[in-house]
């Protein structure tokens, strides 16, 4: 805070009117503070975005970076269980070479698992088999794992921004 703002409003020691100067100083201080808050907010947004991306790539990492250990473990384990079961039940792991909109949608959902997408593909060496109910359930498990991980990444993003989460 500038010292002149502590003087009697509108007057300095020599009795001259300084209201114009005081207002200018206050405005400058406000502008500087606003710029600092904007900078700080921008850094926070960038950090929150980075945390969300980390949480997407490695399930639970976003929460781990925020030191939310329980949530991090829960996210990692739930996504891992769904991916291992989905691949084990020979569910369909969609690729980018899908022919229709449903394949594309499935690919987007599967990509939501981040690094587990590649784990699912390597786990499912025999390929998908959706001719039985198990394979169909496996497909749903894999898609659910992806959507769940995206939800967790969004949650980490909101928590990093300081919103109640």
């Amino acid at each position, binding site marked *: 805070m500038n010292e002149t703002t502590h003087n009697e409003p509108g007057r300095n020691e020599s009795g001259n009117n300084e209201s114009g100067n005081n207002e200018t100083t206050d405005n400058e201080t406000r502008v500087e503070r606003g710029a600092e808050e904007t900078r700080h907010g921008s850094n926070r947004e960038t950090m929150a975005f980075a945390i969300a991306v980390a949480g997407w790539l490695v399930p639970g990492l976003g929460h781990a970076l925020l030191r939310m250990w*329980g*949530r991090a473990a*829960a*996210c990692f*384990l*739930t996504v891992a*269980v*769904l991916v*291992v*079961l989905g*691949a*084990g*039940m*020979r569910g369909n792991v969609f690729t980018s070479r899908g022919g229709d909109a449903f394949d594309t949608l499935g690919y987007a959902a599967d990509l939501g698992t981040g690094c587990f997408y590649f784990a699912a593909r*390597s*786990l*499912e*060496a*025999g390929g998908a088999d959706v001719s039985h*109910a*198990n394979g169909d*359930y496996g497909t*749903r*498990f894999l898609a*659910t794992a992806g959507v*769940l991980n995206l*939800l*967790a990444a969004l*949650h980490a993003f909101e928590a990093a921004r300081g919103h109640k989460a």
Partner: protein
Amino acid sequence: MAMDVSGIRLSHFQAMLIFALVISVAFGFLSRRRPLDQVKYILWSLFLFLVVGIGIGWLMYPFSR
């Protein structure tokens, strides 16, 4: 190195139970802060998943053949 885990066979009920449990745990941890609230939420969510799943199964039964 590829590891093949294919061959997991689950019944319809087992698949539903595991799915409901995993989703309930994830929702419980993400939506509640205190451990007690999390446990309550997980149990309640699991219960509803199973009741609604079995209920829909029964409703669909007449149309299954």
